[in-house]
């Protein structure tokens, strides 16, 4: 039987998709489910090296570790790593295929993504899918293979994450959902307001406004955490910190997510519970 899926997309890059996906991986695993991470398309100056020497996204590598799995190329089938002098190394399932500029590449990326997703779906109970950037970059949308194209293929319910700390999150959520195609919008189950600091009472009317404009609930407001225990994919100066993972900080973050996210709603939408 094919795995159940949930996809985390963001209103921007760096909204906290990876850390939320990591927390969900842990929470599903704690329920006794066999879980794997997946990100179709990733671009970063930093990579994770698997035991067999493959290069994939840092978040997917660490998520596999958290789950006690050996990271594989399937978990991030297309990985792009700038290699200097204006070129980009294109890694297919972790293996360097070519160094090129990106033009025209996305056409043949899609079958590779589909295949990897299918294989993982046969091996696990649940896949936690992560998007890239915003799903409504309208000037590039016809070429995208990282967000809604994946969600549609996997028929995955989508949670949209916005970084409240940066401001404008109501506009970000309302604008993103409003710019989706009807079929895509039909996959979105709600939003998550991340990195919130301050008085929740003041934000509550904002959640009501999101519901009013989009018809979709705010599934959680996650307080800003001093540390979530996971290395930033592109930290200061584009370099990865020495400490990639702290179990203590991550456990604390997972507890925060469990407390502030409507997991029952998510499980129901995923078809994990009746």
């Amino acid at each position, binding site marked *: 039987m094919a795995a159940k899926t949930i996809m985390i997309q*963001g*209103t*921007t*890059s*760096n909204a906290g998709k990876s850390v939320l996906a990591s927390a969900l991986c842990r929470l599903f695993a704690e329920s006794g489910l066999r879980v794997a991470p997946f990100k179709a398309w990733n671009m970063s100056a930093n990579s994770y090296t698997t035991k067999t020497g493959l290069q994939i996204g840092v978040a997917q590598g660490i998520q596999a570790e958290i789950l006690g799995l050996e990271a594989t190329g399937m978990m991030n089938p297309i990985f792009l790593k700038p290699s200097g002098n204006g070129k980009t190394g294109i890694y297919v399932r972790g293996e360097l295929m070519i160094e090129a500029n990106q033009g025209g590449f996305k056409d043949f990326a899609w079958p590779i993504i589909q295949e990897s997703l299918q294989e993982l779906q046969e091996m696990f109970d649940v896949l936690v899918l992560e998007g890239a*950037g*915003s799903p*409504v*970059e*309208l*000037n590039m949308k016809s070429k995208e293979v990282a967000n809604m194209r994946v969600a549609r293929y996997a028929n995955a319910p989508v949670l949209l994450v916005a970084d409240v*700390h*940066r*401001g*404008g*999150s*109501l*506009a*970000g*959520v*309302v*604008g*993103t959902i*409003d*710019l989706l195609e009807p079929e895509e919008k039909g996959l979105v189950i709600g939003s998550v307001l991340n990195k919130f*600091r*301050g*008085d929740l*009472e*003041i*934000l*509550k*009317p*904002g959640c*009501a*406004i999101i519901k009013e*404009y989009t018809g979709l609930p705010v599934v959680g407001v996650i307080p800003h955490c001093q540390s979530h225990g996971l290395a930033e994919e592109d930290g200061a100066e584009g370099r990865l910190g020495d400490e990639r993972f702290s179990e203590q900080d991550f456990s604390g973050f997972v507890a925060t997510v469990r407390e502030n996210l409507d997991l029952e709603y998510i499980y129901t939408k995923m078809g994990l519970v009746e």
Partner: protein
Amino acid sequence: MGHAIMLQGTGSSVGKSTIVAALCRIFSQEGYRVAPFKSQNMGTDTVRLRQNQEISGVQYRQALAAQVEPVVEMNPILLKPVSDLDSEVIVNGQSVGVMSAQEYIAYKPRLLAGIQDALDFLKANHDLVIIEGAGSPAEVNLRDHDIANMVVAEMAAAPVFLVADIHWGGVFAYIHGTMKLLLPKERARIQGLIINKFSGDATRFAEGSDILTELTGVPVLGVIPLLKAFSFEENTDWDRLADHIRDQLDLEPFSKNLSLGGLS
């Protein structure tokens, strides 16, 4: 009596302050007497003026960019966070105490008259007041308590230009969502969009600009390349900043009401 224009953002840190500073210098170079203004600033980067009045360091440096003397009217309200929930409130350069977010919301209505006075003072003494908004004008859960965005634009009768940061992505969503959440009369104030912090060849965003104009009915006035290693400090090379922005921005809409006849 001078004119006013206002820059608002789709979020915090989209580059409003920097673009205001650049516009201050550009219009100063053109021979106008320019003042920066932000009704309410939040942060710990502050400067004490000669009369021991404390204002935001940002407006202070924008005044330097404008080549005018910094005065307390340029930032009548300053919030200095002391914790996640409490801030020291500074009005016209003097502390009035530490308040929680809820206490400050209750206190805010008393501040509106002072904001109007400060604006009037600046307009009376300058050709152009360049106003900076705070955060996003589309935090409509806070609309009733707004003293920094559309309320100020209305007080100053200022056209508004909306700045979005493309570096993190999501500009279509944030601009479209902002316009959607504004009231019709607020939306009508938005006269132009500015796409900031673009990496790479800005001409590649031409199609994006067309899409944004089609969505919002508002022109994209410029796509500003990411300024690497720029620091917004007292000794910043404001002329260099002005050059960087001038080349990328259609300045006509900012200057169309100015009496010296606009820019050449």
